């Protein structure tokens, strides 16, 4: 038996111990997203020992890595072969892990064009609350054998089980990219983005903030240069553009971090997910708009009800991303029928309720 198997056995022991004691466990990777979701409770269950890239075959466009593998390590290995995680997961800090990325299910600036974490998950091995190690999906892109349980785990915040290993679809890094900057107000920027979406343009990412729209084009050389000519705007040089997008992607830009000053003003950071075509939401506070209008970050001290109502009116939902006070609930409430399904799924995977209880919704 090698070390990795031992680490899985060790985790299994902890899980079985917790089941016997009916004690809660909080699953922990690099602990870089502790601020996300409802409060974490229970004894830490660390995935760090489950580490390493299990297999990587560039021509298969698939990589399999264990949960505790550092995201930075994975991305470096891919970059060496000219490939990447197309959904650009945020790296809040250097210690972020693959398991945490999948469990949180957060995607970066390229999400609107390249798809989400969930879209790139092909398979997974999970340790369930029944103490079973199960594998769903696989290493191939097309696979419809049984229910797609591995994708159900994406964004589940660990409430169904511990992600041990995951296979991801990877893609080649775009041949060419270019970043353009426009000085436009919110209304005009949203209208332009909406118009561009109807045309076959290689728009890989967009971000509007404080009267400036940044657009990142990516694709074939010819397509990117044709689009540059067509869209106009001011072209930003590669190196500063790269830094700029990283700050958005990793949410390390000052806007995302609730400093002391902001906190003292009672501000929170909200994430509103709405149809891209929604007009300006007219909410008080500072905004950063991504995903061609579909993701709106809002730093505000406004009442939670006001924000949730605005999101619902736009047929979307609002998440309390960072806040000193999470009493309004981090995620928009579910309909009664969906909550019932959530409860039954929790029961189906983790009947003793040991994994991350309450992290997604209180009581779940």
């Amino acid at each position: 038996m090698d070390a990795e198997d031992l680490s899985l056995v060790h985790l299994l022991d902890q899980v079985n111990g917790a089941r016997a004691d009916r004690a809660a466990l909080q699953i922990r990777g690099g602990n870089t997203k502790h601020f996300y979701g409802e409060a974490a409770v229970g004894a830490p269950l660390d995935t760090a020992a489950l580490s390493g890239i299990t297999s990587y075959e560039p021509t298969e466009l698939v990589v399999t890595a264990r949960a505790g593998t550092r995201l930075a390590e994975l991305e470096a290995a891919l970059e060496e072969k000219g490939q990447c995680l197309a959904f650009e997961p945020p790296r809040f800090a250097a210690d972020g892990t693959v398991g945490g990325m999948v469990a949180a299910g957060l995607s970066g600036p390229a999400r609107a064009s390249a798809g989400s974490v969930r879209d790139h998950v092909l398979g997974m091995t999970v340790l369930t609350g029944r103490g079973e190690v199960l594998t769903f999906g696989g290493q191939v892109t097309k696979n419809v054998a049984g229910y797609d349980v591995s994708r159900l785990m994406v964004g589940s915040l660990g409430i169904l089980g511990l992600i041990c290993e995951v296979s991801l679809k990877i893609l080649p890094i775009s041949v060419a990219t270019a970043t353009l900057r426009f000085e436009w107000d919110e209304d005009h920027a949203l209208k332009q983005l909406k118009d561009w979406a109807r045309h076959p343009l290689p728009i890989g990412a967009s971000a509007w903030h404080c009267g400036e729209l940044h657009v990142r084009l990516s694709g074939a050389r010819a397509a990117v240069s044709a689009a540059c000519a067509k869209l106009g705007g001011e072209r930003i040089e590669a190196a500063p553009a790269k830094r700029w997008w990283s700050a958005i992607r990793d949410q390390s830009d000052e806007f995302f971090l609730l400093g002391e000053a902001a906190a003292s003003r009672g501000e929170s950071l909200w994430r509103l997910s709405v149809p891209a075509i929604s007009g300006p939401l007219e909410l008080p506070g500072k905004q950063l708009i991504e995903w061609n209008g579909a993701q709106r970050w809002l730093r505000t001290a406004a009442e939670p009800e006001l924000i949730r109502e605005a999101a619902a009116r736009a047929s979307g939902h609002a998440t309390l991303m960072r806040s000193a006070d999470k009493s309004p609930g981090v995620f928009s409430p579910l309909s009664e029928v969906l909550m019932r399904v959530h409860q039954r799924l929790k029961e189906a995977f983790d009947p003793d309720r040991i994994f991350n209880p309450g992290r997604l919704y209180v009581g779940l």
Partner: protein
Amino acid sequence: MGQATLVEISCAQPTGDARYASLPGAGWCIILQMSSTARSEVLADSSWKQRQSEVVAALQGVLPREAILSRLEDTAPFECDGLTAYRVVPMVIVLPQTESQVAAVLKLCHELRIPIVARGAGTGLSGGATPHPAGVILSLAKFNRILQVDPASCTASVQCGVRNLAISEAAAPYGLYYAPDPSSQIACTIGGNVAENSGGVHCLKYGLTLHNVLRVRGFMVDGEAVEFGSQALDAPGLDLLSIIVGSEGMLAVTTEVTVKLIPKPLLARCIMASFGDIESAGAAVASVIAHGIIPAGLEMMDKAMTAAVEAFVHADYDLQAAAILLCESDGTPEEVEEEIERMEQVLRAAGASRFEVSRDEAQRLKFWSGRKNAFPASGGISPDYMCMDSTIPRKCIAEMLREIQQMEIKYQLRCVNVFHACDGNLHPLILFDADDADQMRRCELFGADILETSVRLGGTVTGEHGVGLEKLNSMCVQFSAAERAQFTAVKQAFDPLELLNPGKVIPTLHRCAEYGKMHVRRGMLPFPELPRF
């Protein structure tokens, strides 16, 4: 019932306990090659007929008379789906027209514990829509309205019975289309596509159904309205849309779907390349990907398939080639030019013996005509064919084809091959004569062998057609007992009484024990040194 006249392949009894044992018809079996005698025996069975009239009477309380079919001449077209070898006499078919009728039917069936099988166009190839002998077929054929095509948001909301191609047709005036394009797209419904997570020839670049659906509205088994996903790019809570898509009608009934539309590429061009041996064709596929190219489509046909389609469409295919690759690029004219050049370099370096790039749209469609007609062309060279659908890692394509050649000798049946090569998704078509019981038997063994070889090579028993009834046995090979039990637990989280499409997708423990083949271990495993059973 005179079982002797029937070839029994699968008891339609739901998984788990014997909750249905008391239901008439529960013990009846899904039958193969149902002869007219077999059919008349079912129809002559008095307990079955009595149950049928009870169910019809109950349904008349919630549906107009013309929306309920129970006479043999009306129900016969529903005996099977695209997997025509598996047939069951349907007890009752309902054709509701409104959502409230769907809700009422579900509620009633739930109260009376009657199994429900939702049905779209019935083009499924794994028996997903095969009737349950003691159940009701919920045909959604009347849900055929396109509710909205919104060019501003690049989305369309359509009822579940709308045909896949009709969505793209409705979006065409705006320069938009719905990307997933199963070969059956003129007939199959979006509700069926959602249930199967259907693919097409453009999946690697544009994704499967899952990647192109935003929201599914429908009903839970007890008739309660429900919505999965949202009009935004995500929804709060667990990603239930992911599990609904591909759930083969076993978790909920879909009535309305909101899909993403994307701008039609300005141009598409296709390369047709011949290879003298299958190894170099397989290597060419890997090489295209290795060079960082994501083709819009990359399909492969073997020599026997090429011969069959050439006879059918006369498109001037290379009949000498061991394998033909169709490699497509789409996008702006500049993008396409750049990409075709890169593809050409790679394919030539990989040893293409004949090479042609489509000059115009007419020629591009001609290149594709054979591939698109692969199934009917196979019908032209054999009385029947069984279409398999497994996925393997791309690097194993040549090895798999060699294995299939060995199987042709072993089972004494011919097999022609078309592949979604860029996804490693195989469609071997086993040629046989369904009137010959022994050929039918060998065909099934041949099919199971292909599926299980795929699992052994690191792949899966179904890439896009679903498990249905056809691949129940092979599921025993791909998943452990604990994994199958977890599927059942998921099923019960949505449908505690297991009334939606029972008996499909998840094989029972008993069935796997009888099948007797070892589960092939994948993924991580604690205690790997212990023997597993």
